[in-house]
């Protein structure tokens, strides 16, 4: 059973690599990559902690609800660990 995760809904300013359209959405971890330095600090030349980078797979139904073009199609994105919370 693939691990289910939800993307945080926070909306900080700055160089964030978590697309706004995926915030608050739940998906499953497709694979884990990295660790890679946190781009939110790296972009400003600050010391950056390394985080695992998860490839998270969302269904189009999860991302777009009733407006999904084809509900079972999928959207994969790379999300840093500090943006994810585990879902039971």
């Amino acid at each position: 059973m693939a691990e289910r995760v939800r993307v945080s809904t926070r909306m900080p300013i700055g160089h964030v690599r978590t697309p706004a359209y995926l915030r608050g959405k739940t998906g499953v971890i497709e694979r884990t990559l990295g660790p890679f330095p946190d781009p939110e600090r790296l972009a400003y030349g600050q010391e950056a902690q390394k985080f695992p980078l998860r490839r998270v797979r969302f269904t189009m139904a999860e991302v777009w609800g009733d407006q999904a073009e084809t509900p079972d199609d999928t959207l994969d994105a790379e999300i840093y660990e500090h943006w994810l919370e585990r879902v039971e």
Partner: protein
Amino acid sequence: MPHDHLSPSGHPYRPDQDHPLTYWQQMEIALRELLIEKGVTTAAEIQSQIEAMDARTPANGAAVVARAWTDPSFREALMADASEATRGMGFDIGPMRLIAVENTAEVHNMIVCTLCSCYPRNLLGLPPDWYKSRAYRSRTVREPRKVLAEFGVELPPGTTVRVHDSTADMRYIVIPARPAGTEGLDAAALAALVTRDSMIGTGLPRQP
């Protein structure tokens, strides 16, 4: 002359750049000149890097795809670690990582970068302008099948579309399905069938 702003082919000429430099153009020139003045790099080194960037074309990616179609152990290595497998062919992706996603009878993959214009330049060269457009970036995650239809791609019923948003450290190449009727072709002949768009997922390979 009513139409002297048009070329003989009827298209408008690109206007001369008589406006002052933008802030970022000034910054680029200032930084480049300082790096040369301080001996960090030379104009010749910068030029040779530009030439190396211009020399990268989708033929690199096509060679990777054709080899994946003809060499099962390479295909396996490519799917396991595409950065390493393509580096072995002389295509170094540098600090980025590469993921290969494979089209099958059941799955069609498409690549987009909604945040900017991430693209596997070492394998495909410079991205086409449409890849960087807001329309492609926003619509591909929202209505990928409509986008595919506009590119002339009809998928068989039952195909799942998987869109990959290149949001962070990964770059992606689609390994299209090998066209039917190509059993007798060698890797060089197969590579000629592999288009740029088929490796982005907005097209299919040519038929022999």
